[in-house]
């Protein structure tokens, strides 16, 4: 188990390093003067000789593999570079914004899981009634609505028309509710569909028929004997979905002016602040890998037959 964990962590570190090198390469291949990309167009006013010296100080006169290696080394030491927009260290900028996005993602995932499980179980429990096609249809539609449109509709209904919740900005749970709901609704639909399908699969198993024959109550059969066995695929989809959701964060933060990493990424791209963009990629990649690992560890609890070596 320890060996497995170490192998996963090592493999993950290699993947993140490769991703950073690819992104670094993309940025190095960008058209235009890399010094301008690093320091901004203001640098063009500086005399050529001085620019040459700045170039060699930044390591831009060295071949690209050396630059990439130097960048990775700096990242390992915790130095992510300096944001050209604010002049502050990238690591500091990320630290400022990470809590807001983490709160948003956690709240959205909680909502998505709660809603997805309830609707999925309901659809499976009433699989032979009129409720199931209705729910299935609603889920198909729900999975198709783009998250920024959900955001705009919620914004219009609950803050601009009813004036129950603030429209924009960061802060307490009142600010968090609408962005989390937009994101959560988008992820709830696929979760509910998987829950329904997995639960129907699980309910067809012989032990469930046996439980029913023994006269166990309907909720007990459904939840203890059915859902318990259906959770593993649900967790898989939740993990895949989470990656997608992290992408959607960008849009939701833009709609609601939520001061998180997504907002930071868009501002960084508009300002062509590429060191900052790279920082966001690093944080996201680490988060995605950590979640994948958590999911695989969750299988151990959900399905005792799973063994990792």
């Amino acid at each position, binding site marked *: 188990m320890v060996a497995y964990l170490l192998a996963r962590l090592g493999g993950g570190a290699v*993947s993140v390093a490769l991703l950073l090198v690819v992104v670094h390469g993309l940025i190095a291949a960008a058209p235009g003067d890399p010094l301008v990309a690093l320091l901004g167009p203001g640098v063009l006013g500086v005399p050529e000789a001085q620019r040459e010296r700045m170039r060699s100080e930044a390591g831009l006169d060295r071949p690209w593999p050396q630059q990439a290696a130097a960048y990775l080394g700096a990242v390992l030491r915790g130095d992510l570079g300096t944001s050209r927009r604010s002049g502050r260290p990238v690591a500091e900028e990320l630290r400022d914004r990470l809590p807001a996005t983490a709160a948003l993602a956690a709240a959205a995932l909680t909502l998505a899981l709660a809603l997805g499980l309830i609707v999925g179980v309901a659809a499976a429990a009433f699989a032979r009634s009129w409720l199931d096609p209705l729910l299935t249809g609603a889920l198909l539609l729900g999975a198709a609505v783009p998250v920024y449109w959900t955001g705009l509709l919620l914004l219009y209904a609950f803050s601009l028309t009813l004036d129950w919740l603030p429209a924009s900005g960061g802060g307490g749970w009142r600010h968090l509710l609408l962005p989390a709901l937009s994101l959560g609704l988008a992820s709830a639909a696929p979760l509910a569909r998987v829950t329904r399908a997995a639960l129907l699969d699980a309910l067809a198993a012989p032990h469930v028929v046996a439980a029913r024959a023994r006269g166990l109550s309907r909720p007990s059969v459904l939840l203890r004997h059915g859902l318990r066995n259906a959770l593993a695929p649900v967790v898989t989809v939740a993990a*895949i979905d989470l990656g997608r959701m992290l992408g959607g964060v960008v849009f939701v933060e833009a709609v609601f002016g939520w001061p998180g990493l997504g907002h930071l*990424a*868009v501002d960084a791209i508009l300002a062509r602040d590429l060191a900052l963009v790279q920082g966001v990629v690093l944080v996201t990649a680490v988060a995605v890998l950590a979640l994948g690992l958590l999911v*695989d560890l969750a299988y151990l609890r959900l399905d005792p037959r*799973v063994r990792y070596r």
Partner: protein
Amino acid sequence: MTDATPARRRRRRRLHPSGVVGAALLAVLLAATLLAPWLSPRGPSEVDLRRRLQPPTWAEPLGTDELGRSTLARVLHGGRVSLWVAVVTVLAAAAAGGALGTLAGAAPGRLDGLLMRLVDALLICPPLLLALVIVGVLGPGLWPAAIALAVAEAPVFARLVRSVILTTRELPYVEAAVASGARARRVLLRHVVPAATGVVVVQATVTVGFVVVALAGLGFLGLGVQPPTADWGDMLARARDHLPGAPWLMLAPGAAITAAVLGANLLGDALRDALADRGGAAAGALAGRRPASPRPTRGRGRPA
């Protein structure tokens, strides 16, 4: 999936009705954007300052925006950007990713390993974020956004095609082709690669939905289409600025995106089910987007 009967019935019918509905939805949308000049009396950039921010009327069924432009005309013409460019983007991603996957699947172990490590590294970055990085490098615009999304989606296709190639090349008929003396290139291109067609088509269909959302989303963020060209995402961004007063502005573009995604999802799901019923080496390859990780042995529910 719970018993064999629906599957057998579906095989006879070939495509589930929901897939036909999805295909029809997409066809109607694509046709509407092509027929835009005939369906809407006014042009998408025709400014009329006397008719600014007007709610829907008989003459202007979807209202007008802050410059008095017809929302109907802009949604229809915007679809030419949002929908058609998305389709082209997915084709490019499938072609590039497919070529990469073929190369990796056919290459000797070391090159294959290197290519797949690279693909896996790209897959840990959410496609949208990867696209954002590339837009950051290329600068905002419609074609940079499209290129970015094509590059961001290509690794998924590369993984998919490679996995099909690895399973297919062990099959007896491929062995037979090799034994009959066909050259390696011919075996690969004529006997192995075609086996991936089904999964690529399914994945491409589903990806169209994602790319429509992402492309419009980049427009929404101001990183995609630049004004005055109409685009569903850009329309939504403008609608937000006029929100309390002019809610009709956000309805049509949002509904158009939703309809396109719904169509792509319905068609993609039905195609996937049809492919799974046909069985074969390829069907198992479509399980998920994440790089392979240990999965429990049973209970892999596909979405209904």
